[in-house]
């Protein structure tokens, strides 16, 4: 049996396990449900777990190791002249064998490869057969054992609940392990990079020019990996974005939370949040094709020298993009301020704007600051808009009218196209990614801590 059929079989057997477990529990008390410890369906789930979990585990483990084991067996049987290669050659060989086996092979001319492919196919069949046998045996064993366990006093409910909990824990750890995996992969590549370029050069160098000669005999610059111009570019654009987003977002939040009638609010809030749903690439070409030329023309009419790709254009559009973050979070926190504080201020004769400025905003401030920090980390990590609108030249400047480049833009340009994964040029992307990750991580932690502290105050 091939694997999809086997999976289907497991599902059918599990369902059958549920049915028989339920029936068995009813049989032993001859239908008097109240004499059972748990409801009959729990005995069903219990038996289904005994059938389903071991077989699925076996299937997963088999899938994980089958490829490696079969390859090793095939390679071991190859003629001597093809053996002995290690690393990449061996991987290529296995690929060739597999291609031949699938019939799409290019190198099927070699009879020894052809023989190996046949061997592989044979082993594959044996493996499938073994797996089917194992699954059926395990299902039968689990079913028999679970069936025997079902008694009047058997605590099926408690065991099923525990099984459910283990399953939920497994699901939640997947996300955590993925994060850990990402961090580790970035860290390992960064370590490789820092072996070639000193950390201090990277963090404090003022010149960014990652073009390197790929071969030793090529003519080319040796490359410079000072990331300061990228950091300042990122900060400049993020700063412009926050200058746009914080006042507009905060004020629209105040309007929505305090002044708008419920009808306006139900319409306006989702509309504002649509801004967050626009794909960033759409913002990107809006910035590059509409805003940047407009700013350049405006600058020219004022006699200023504006480059066609400017930090200002990218920052403005990014600011518009994160307005909904600021406004939505601020709105939530303003709404979370207890009505009793508003009542207290009104009862003293405070006007609405006095109440908002002097009571509500100070009370909601920690939450608002947390929301703004989340928006900042979003702005720093934003890629598409700056790739399209901010330019690629690593200028160390604070002039918003000049073209600058950001950390994310450089990561994209370093990794697009054909790359060699042992040149500092490519590895630099991982070092940049690591810095970016650390900065946004710290911002997020700070934001969450502030928000949590605020929550404790009022609940």
């Amino acid at each position, binding site marked *: 049996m091939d694997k999809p059929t086997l999976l289907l079989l497991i599902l059918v057997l599990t369902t059958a396990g549920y049915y028989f477990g339920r029936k068995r529990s009813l049989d032993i008390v001859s239908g008097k449900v109240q004499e059972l410890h748990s409801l009959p369906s729990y005995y069903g789930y219990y038996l289904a777990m005994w059938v389903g979990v071991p077989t699925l585990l076996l299937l997963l483990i088999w899938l994980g190791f089958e490829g490696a084991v079969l390859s090793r067996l095939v390679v071991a049987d190859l003629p001597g002249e093809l053996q002995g290669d290690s690393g990449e050659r061996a991987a290529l060989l296995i690929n060739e064998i597999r291609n031949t086996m699938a019939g799409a092979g290019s190198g099927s001319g070699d009879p020894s490869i052809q023989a190996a492919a046949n061997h592989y196919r044979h082993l594959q069949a044996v493996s499938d057969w073994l797996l089917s046998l194992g699954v059926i045996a395990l299902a039968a064993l689990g079913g028999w054992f679970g069936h025997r366990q079902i008694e009047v006093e058997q605590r099926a409910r408690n065991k099923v609940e525990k099984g459910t909990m283990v399953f939920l824990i497994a699901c939640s750890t997947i996300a955590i392990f993925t994060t850990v995996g990402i961090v580790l992969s970035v860290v390992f590549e960064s370590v490789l990079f820092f072996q070639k370029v000193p950390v201090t050069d990277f963090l404090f160098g003022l010149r960014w020019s990652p073009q390197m000669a790929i071969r030793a005999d090529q003519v080319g610059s040796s490359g410079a990996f000072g990331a300061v111009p990228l950091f300042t570019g990122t900060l400049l654009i993020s700063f412009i974005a926050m200058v746009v987003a914080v006042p507009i977002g905060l004020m629209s939040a105040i309007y929505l939370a305090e002044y708008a009638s419920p009808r306006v609010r139900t319409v306006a809030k989702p509309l504002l949040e649509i801004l967050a749903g626009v794909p960033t690439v759409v913002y990107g070409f809006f910035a590059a094709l509409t805003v940047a030329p407009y700013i350049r023309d405006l600058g020219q009419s004022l006699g200023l020298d504006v480059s066609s790709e400017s930090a200002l254009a990218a920052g403005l559009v990014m600011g518009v993009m994160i307005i909904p973050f600021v406004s939505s979070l601020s709105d939530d926190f303003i709404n979370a301020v207890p009505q009793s504080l508003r009542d207290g201020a009104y*009862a*003293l*004769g405070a006007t609405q704007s006095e109440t908002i400025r002097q009571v509500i905003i100070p*009370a909601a401030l920690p939450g608002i600051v947390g929301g703004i920090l989340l928006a900042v980390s979003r702005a720093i990590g934003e890629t598409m808009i700056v790739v399209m609108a901010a330019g690629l030249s690593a200028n160390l400047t604070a002039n918003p009218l000049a073209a600058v480049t950001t950390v994310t833009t450089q990561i994209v340009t370093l990794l697009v196209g054909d790359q060699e994964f042992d040149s500092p040029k490519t590895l630099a992307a991982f070092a940049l990614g690591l810095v970016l990750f650390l900065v946004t991580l710290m911002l997020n932690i700070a934001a969450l801590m502030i928000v949590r502290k605020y929550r404790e105050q009022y609940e």
Partner: protein
Amino acid sequence: MNSLLELKTAMRDERTEVKPAKRLGTNVSFDRDYGDTVGEVTASNARMVCRDVNVFYGPKQAIHGVNLDIGRNEVIALIGPSGCGKSTFIRCLNRMNDTIVGCRVTGSIQLDGQDIYDPQMDVVPLRAQIGMVFQKPNPFPKSIYENVAYGPRIHGLTQNKAELEEVVENSLRRAGLWDEVKDSLDQPGTSLSGGQQQRLCIARTIAVNPEVILMDEPCSALDPIATARIEQLIDELRMQFTIAIVTHSMQQAARVSQRTAYFHLGKLIEVGETAQVFTNPRHQLTEDYITGRFG
């Protein structure tokens, strides 16, 4: 049970012949019957005069034709079972109901002869004249000093810092809180205990020197000792202010008030001298409530 039925019938009867709510101007004499209310609705020295007050939350009527005077320097207690409209009524007296969407008030409420629901009336100075203390202590998330100084600041009551400090100290003294907080005025108001917070809210209210103080169950979140402290405070404040207090505790009403008004299902059933209402109620419903037959 019978009386309850009677009341319901009476209410139904009255609803059929309900008069259109009139907005009465200032200085109109009120020589008319006061509906079904038993007892002395009027006060000889009235500071607030409410006539035929109806309150609606959307289509639902919460208060039915209440007539009531609140006299100068008296403490009037509003009692009644939950949902009888006493909190709704007290919130009408400084137009706090304005903040509730869908709330509509008809009839006339006057403060010193001035209709507070007049379209010309500005609620900001009105609420400075009629202060309010709420059920749950609600100090602002500011320092103790700033909590008390807030009212005088927004109304520009003081000329300079020294004057403001004097007002703050005076208010805290009158609220009986000064000795406990004089060394920690820069601490957040929320760091105080529940009873202290409530006294801080009272200090905040009297700092703007209102004429009337409304209290909506000011002790319901406090322990007996803090409650006793606040009750004593109410008695002292009576010399200077007019106080209306909503309470669920009949003992409290008996201890602090001179007059008591009993509300039931949105109607004012009986009002009179506190001693008389508690010892010799004239309406069956009042008697049933204060003897604990329901409520």
